[in-house]
């Protein structure tokens, strides 16, 4: 009997350890003789360093060492460029990557200048107060538009400009589309910075074992294998001498894949230098200053439509604030550029962006990775066009969706994976209709009127989006039948709560027909599996899941072949079920997988030429292109125009991520994404002053949504299989938070029609909404 696990809401294998406090997180690593590190970070956003005096810190009892850039010698060098710029014609890219410790100049508040190693974190922090830095403050660049002004202070003087990149992409002739249009809508849109705020801060622990000549590094990274490879290169070690473990990681959301953070470069070096284990755990305050952040963008966008609401073209100029460095290349603005097109037919598109250096923390992908900015601009343009045309917002979307006959669809611009933006499959209209039906769109106006009579203001927002997911280059997996009969799976990417221990187990369990609990998955340990890239771009399930599937298939073939030999039957007669192999029609001729595994690794006899010992296989999966997930979000809000407070009353998601491995996990991902999207829309904004100081660097002032701020998400799935991978999977990790801001803006406007509000910015705090309402009132 072949059981089906893929598609089932199987409870998670990893939960027991997490629920009982037995799961290992990096800060839990405690080794004999371990020393603790604290970093001295810049108070200035932009300043020259004229001198650093660490003598008092060194003299403090309990301090083992203090290091500045000078002490690093040849080890001091700029970090790697993670993602080179994509092959877009005429592209400009100025590369400036972060350094381990600032030497002559600091570029943002929080940039590390020195590190203290001490017997405890307490003493290390005491010693930070002993270090004197002589700064010569420089003018700071905070606003990306001002950064490009001719007289702006320049961060990286070698370029003579704060321009980090300039990219133009498009297709068709927008000017002609505009000339033919019945209506052109043009607006400026702002989408400001936020923080990922994984509940676990970053941490790195390292131990050098001089006898084994081996470095072990525990790191809260989303990409342990590239970290190992890079560390080996930097430290002059073989990759086999470096063992990186990303154990349980308390949320990633993007910033934990940035590499190399200065701390990741320095902690292993210090451990080797001192010959003692060393640990650094970021505290929450540091997290606001030292962990990469979400993007801020300013878009000047325009849409040209016909009288009946058909899109003729879109033009967008935008500035992307990349922060102090551009180590992660152009992934984020390219995502914005590509995702703007949404599920729509856009006959002409001109999109041009400038990435700009500013004296703020570096921007790298954070859940959504710039997609929400594109979605916000496009959805808002459609809303404004619909309003001008007197058309229902849902209707204008209906009229512009790509039809099912369009797939595969090539947008003729380059996506973040360097391939043309290519939609593999999709089915957009039914998702919209399901969302409208679920939220009761048709009867909503009636209810809105009734509520209005009772003095209450409710509004609805419905928006669409697509998400490019599951990109290459590749992931791999090794599947092994353990002599105990359990199945071991090892894959290279790290896990941060996505349920990989279960989802991958389900894929393998289905192929091998064993219980899911019998499949033991290891992720994020370079000793267990040494090839792979990392967890990003909603690709874990798609790419590593497909590799697990391929490896399990290969093991299955080995099992059948060997069982045929051992049970003396032709392969076609062998049945694999319930952890056993049997000869069809002769149930007494049976072996457990454990017995078979033991026989596959004999102590005597010979392993025949052309065969391998063990029941084990390794496989890789590298998709040519990603797969395109899509969906519709609908939201009902109630706004109190007197207090400018907004309450989300209902939230509906219709999501299409192809075939589902574990619907429970998928729903959890979407629900969690929506919560983050709500934070993004209404609560979370990093506020910088004109001198580049972050003004809300704590959980007191940077507001994450709580259980009272996030509604129950009502969810419906549609499954349009991905044609590019064997299981038909599309990614889901980021979907929940991508269209939330756009839906929120539409719903708030809809709740207050008499104000004629145009919400062109996200996040929208009550304080800001209050002033928008006051302005509307005054006019």
């Amino acid at each position, binding site marked *: 009997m072949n059981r089906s696990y893929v598609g089932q809401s199987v409870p998670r294998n990893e939960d027991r350890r997490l629920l009982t406090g037995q799961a290992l997180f990096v800060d839990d690593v405690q080794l004999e003789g371990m020393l603790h590190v604290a970093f001295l970070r810049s108070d200035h956003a932009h300043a020259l360093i004229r001198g650093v005096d660490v003598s008092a810190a060194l003299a403090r009892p309990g301090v083992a060492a203090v290091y500045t850039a000078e002490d690093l010698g040849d080890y001091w060098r700029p970090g790697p460029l993670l993602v080179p710029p994509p092959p877009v014609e005429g592209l400009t890219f100025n590369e400036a990557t972060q350094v381990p410790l600032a030497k002559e100049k600091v570029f943002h508040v929080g940039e590390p200048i020195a590190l203290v190693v001490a017997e405890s974190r307490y003493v290390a922090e005491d010693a930070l107060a002993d270090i004197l830095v002589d700064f010569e403050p420089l003018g700071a660049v905070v606003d990306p538009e001002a950064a490009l002004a001719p007289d702006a202070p320049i961060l990286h003087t070698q370029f003579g400009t704060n321009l980090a990149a300039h990219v133009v992409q498009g297709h068709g002739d927008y000017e002609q589309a505009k000339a033919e249009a019945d209506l052109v809508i043009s607006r400026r849109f702002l989408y400001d910075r936020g923080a990922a705020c994984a509940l676990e801060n970053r941490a790195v622990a390292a131990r050098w074992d001089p006898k084994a000549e081996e470095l072990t590094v525990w790191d809260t990274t989303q990409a342990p294998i590239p970290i190992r490879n890079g560390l080996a290169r930097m430290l002059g070690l073989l990759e086999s001498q470096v063992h990186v473990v990303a154990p349980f990681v308390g949320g990633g959301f993007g910033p934990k894949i940035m590499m190399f953070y200065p701390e990741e470069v320095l902690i292993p070096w210090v451990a080797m230098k001192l010959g003692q284990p060393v640990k650094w755990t970021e505290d929450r305050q540091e997290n606001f200053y030292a962990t990469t952040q979400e993007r801020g963008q300013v878009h000047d966008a325009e849409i040209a439509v016909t009288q009946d609401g058909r899109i003729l073209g879109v033009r967008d100029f935008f500035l992307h604030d990349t922060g102090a460095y551009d180590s992660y290349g152009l992934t984020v603005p390219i995502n914005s550029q590509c995702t703007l097109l949404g599920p729509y037919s856009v006959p002409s598109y001109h999109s041009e962006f400038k990435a700009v250096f500013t004296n703020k923390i570096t921007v790298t992908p954070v859940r959504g990775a710039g997609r929400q900015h594109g979605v916000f601009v496009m959805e808002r343009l459609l809303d404004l066009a619909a309003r001008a045309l007197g058309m229902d917002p849902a209707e204008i979307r209906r009229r512009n969706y790509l039809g099912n006959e369009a797939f595969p669809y090539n947008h003729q611009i380059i996506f973040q994976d360097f391939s043309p933006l290519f939609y593999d499959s999709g089915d957009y209209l039914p998702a919209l209709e399901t969302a409208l039906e679920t939220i009761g769109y048709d009867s909503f106006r009636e209810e809105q009127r009734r509520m209005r009579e009772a003095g209450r203001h409710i509004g609805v927002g419905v928006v669409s989006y697509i998400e490019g997911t599951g990109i290459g280059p590749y992931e791999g997996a090794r599947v092994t039948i353990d002599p105990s009969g359990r199945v071991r799976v090892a894959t290279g990417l790290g896990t941060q709560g996505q349920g990989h221990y279960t989802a991958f187990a389900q894929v393998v369990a289905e192929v091998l027909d064993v219980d899911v609990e019998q499949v033991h998955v290891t992720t994020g340990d370079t000793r267990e599996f040494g090839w792979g890239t990392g967890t990003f771009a909603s690709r874990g399930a798609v790419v590593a899941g497909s590799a697990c599937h391929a490896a399990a298939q290969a093991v299955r073939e080995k099992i059948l072949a060997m069982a045929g030999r051992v049970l003396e039957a032709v392969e076609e007669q062998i049945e694999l079920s319930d952890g056993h192999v049997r000869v069809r029609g002769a149930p007494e001729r049976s072996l457990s997988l454990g017995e078979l595994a033991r026989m596959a690794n004999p102590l005597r006899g010979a392993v025949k030429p052309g065969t391998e010992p063990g029941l084990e296989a390794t496989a890789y999966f590298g998709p040519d292109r990603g797969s395109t997930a899509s969906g519709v979000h609908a939201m009902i809000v109630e706004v109190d125009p007197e207090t400018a407070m907004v309450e989300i009353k209902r939230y509906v998601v219709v999501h299409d991520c192809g075939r589902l491995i574990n619907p429970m996990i998928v729903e959890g991902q979407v629900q*969690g994404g*929506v919560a983050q999207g709500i934070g993004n829309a209404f609560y979370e904004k990093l506020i910088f002053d004109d001198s580049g100081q972050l003004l809300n660097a704590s959980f007191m002032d940077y507001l994450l949504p709580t259980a009272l701020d996030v509604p129950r998400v009502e969810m419906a799935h549609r499954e349009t299989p991905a044609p590019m991978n064997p299981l038909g999977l599309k990614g889901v990790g980021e979907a929940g938070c991508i269209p939330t801001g756009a839906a929120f803006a539409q719903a708030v406007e809809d709740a207050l029609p008499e104000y004629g509000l145009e919400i062109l910015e996200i996040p929208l705090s009550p304080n800001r909404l209050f002033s928008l309402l006051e302005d509307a009132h005054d006019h």
Partner: protein
Amino acid sequence: MTSPVELSVRVNGASHQRSVEPRLLLSDFLRHELNLTGTHVGCEHGVCGACTILMDGEAVRSCLIFAVQADGHELTTVEGLAAGDDALHPLQTAFREAHGLQCGFCTPGFLMTLIPFLRDNPTPSDREIREGISGNLCRCTGYQNIVQAVRLAAERMAPEATP
């Protein structure tokens, strides 16, 4: 005195005597002195709730208490919840079944918050549950499945449910 202070405390039923610096936070004491690393530290300023433990049966933030202040008190951490090696507390079981955790970092704090919450209010409404956990931040789940888990646990833990 900034010099070490004697401390005697019961944690999960076991007694511990230690000499600690007065400034040592209780969260650090549990994690690094007693190796009870299930109590997690997320903000150290009393907002995220990850470090919540029970002190004499009440939920408190262990990052806002000095270890010396636990002298003579009874503490429970997440490691003390389950009865035995295999048995999970009904609340833990409910979290697993309802998928009330993803990365699991905030989870011990939620569990410890909910123990006295359900003791004081065994049949909470959804609104009460949400208010009860509003001092705990979760970045992964969006809370819905946590609410679901609490409801499930409340049903199972209700006095009439026990035979």
